[in-house]
């Protein structure tokens, strides 16, 4: 009896988790411009008008640029920090880890506010740069977490073997260390891209009058404008964020010879990546 109740509970939660997403995907095909249920009919007529919407295209382009630049910065700085923290014991090592996680642990509004008053204090005008600074700050940690998790699961004996065989520090890095962490870096980068592409809270404070795609969606939902086009964009956003995340999951799932743990390691690592990678909106 208890088992049956438990199964029903799990089934209800699965429904609860998935239903809204399936439903919203359906609304993209709503024939009417009134968003009520049941849908009066299905149609793809809103797709064309959405793709010709100039404001939407500009917002999309801004989001893509911001995400690409923020991801690049995050990969460079995040992997540097991960290598340093993994390889060396130094004073303040724990502080570094804590500092990097701070932008995710603190509510997004704090990060947004802080950057906003920072730019106001320095009389910096809002631009693509200010958006990128905001995004990169919380994207660094996703790359850092992924790289560090991978480094911790690799064996230092491989590096030692490489050195014993006569490779210098750079050769060892290039031919041994980098190939071992490459997929983790790509995975972290993909997660960072998805995070940046989707971010809205920090962006409201660092964008000024510019519209990223999430800001365009937010503005239109709030004012109840252009909802048929919002529905189409929403479907597009689901696809654009799910694809890199799925890829990232695949890249970190199988780490071949580098895996030291079995079974448990997988669940732990992917859970950690998933949790740590999510923004604090």
């Amino acid at each position, binding site marked *: 009896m*208890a*088992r049956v109740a*438990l*199964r029903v509970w*799990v089934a209800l939660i*699965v429904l609860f*988790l*998935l239903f*809204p*997403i399936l*439903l919203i995907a359906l*609304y993209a095909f709503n024939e009417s411009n009134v*968003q009520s249920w*049941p849908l009066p009919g299905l149609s793809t007529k809103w797709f064309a008008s959405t793709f010709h919407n100039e404001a939407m295209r500009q917002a999309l382009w801004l989001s893509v640029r911001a995400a690409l630049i923020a991801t690049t910065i995050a990969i460079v*700085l995040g992997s*540097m*920090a991960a290598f*340093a923290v993994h*390889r060396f014991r*130094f004073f303040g090592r724990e502080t570094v880890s804590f*500092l*990097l996680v701070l932008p995710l642990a*603190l*509510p*997004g*509004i704090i*990060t947004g*506010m*802080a*950057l906003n*008053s*920072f730019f*106001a204090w320095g009389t910096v005008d809002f631009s693509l740069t200010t958006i990128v600074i905001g995004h990169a*700050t919380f994207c*660094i940690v996703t790359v850092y977490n992924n790289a560090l998790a991978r480094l911790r699961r690799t064996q230092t004996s491989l590096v030692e073997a490489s050195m014993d065989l*006569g490779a*210098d*520090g750079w050769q060892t890095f290039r031919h041994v260390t980098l190939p071992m962490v490459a997929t983790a870096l790509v995975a972290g980068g993909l997660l960072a891209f*998805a995070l940046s592409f989707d971010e*809205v*809270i920090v962006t*409201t404070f660092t964008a000024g009058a510019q519209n990223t795609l*999430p800001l365009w*969606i*937010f503005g239109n*939902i*709030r004012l109840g404008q252009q909802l048929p086009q*919002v529905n189409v964009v*929403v479907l597009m*956003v*689901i696809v654009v*964020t*799910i694809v890199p995340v799925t890829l990232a*999951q695949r890249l970190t799932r199988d780490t071949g010879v580098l895996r030291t743990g079995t079974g448990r390691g997988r669940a732990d690592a992917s*859970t950690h990546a*998933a*949790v740590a990678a*999510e923004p*604090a*909106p």
Partner: protein
Amino acid sequence: MTAARAEVVAGGPGRFRSARRRASAGLFRRGWLRATLLLSAPAAWFVLIYLAALAILFVSAFWRVDAFTGEVVHQWNLDNFKTIAESPAYRTIALRTIGIAAAVTLTDALLAIPFAYFAARLAPRRLQTVLFVIVLVPLWTSYLVRVYAWRLILAHDGILNWTLHKLGFGGVDIAYSNWAMWVVFSYLWLPFMILPVWVAFERVPDSFLEASADLGARGWTTFRRVLLPLVLPGVVAGSIFTFSLTLGDFITPTLVGGAGSDFIGNVVYSSVGIANNVPFAAAFATIPLLVMGAYLLVARKVGAFEAL
């Protein structure tokens, strides 16, 4: 080392390589130098931008805005904090934010524990993978998209009321209310609760349960007296997310909360965006900061950090 000698003997490019080798060997011996080089860029980013920004935020809470010019005056005072403490409206907003954050945390814990128990300890391997993906899908679907979906579901002419009418119940009118925020927040952060609890259930060794059974405990007693205390750190770890994310939000209150359901975040947002009063916004933003700080201290005592 033979490789190095061979290069030297070969001459030519070897001379360049041995110089590089000396440099890298030097770097290898001086670990602190390499660590410094690697850390300098990320540390500079975080100290010069992020920490500086946080410091300015904290300091500007003690500044004020000139009523006539609208300019920030760098003059130390406690006016902003006084305004917040003395205004019943602001107190209500702070209490509403903290209250709903607590309710959401409790709800998610109640929803997640049975689910995670089943997923971690009872489900066969394949089902486990399926459930894992099902939990991750909403986590990785755009936050705005999910809030918007609920706005359509809960709307007066949405699918919830349509279903209730079909089933013969009257409709409910919870769109744009505190109830709507409670439902939507619980939905948004549920995966953040499920994942750490799931891992916590997974980590409990089978032998503990066998020992409990050997000592005569039945299923329910074992669950309550052995499993639950062991997964508590996981629950607290999840609650850090559910609580913190709710505290800092202003999008969900704007989109599904409607009039009269402002959160701390809404006040902060409008103080910056509309009233252009950054010092006041900064002062109000210290409330979630302090609440979260206290919460993290308690969470660390319970051992939640190891369960993250």
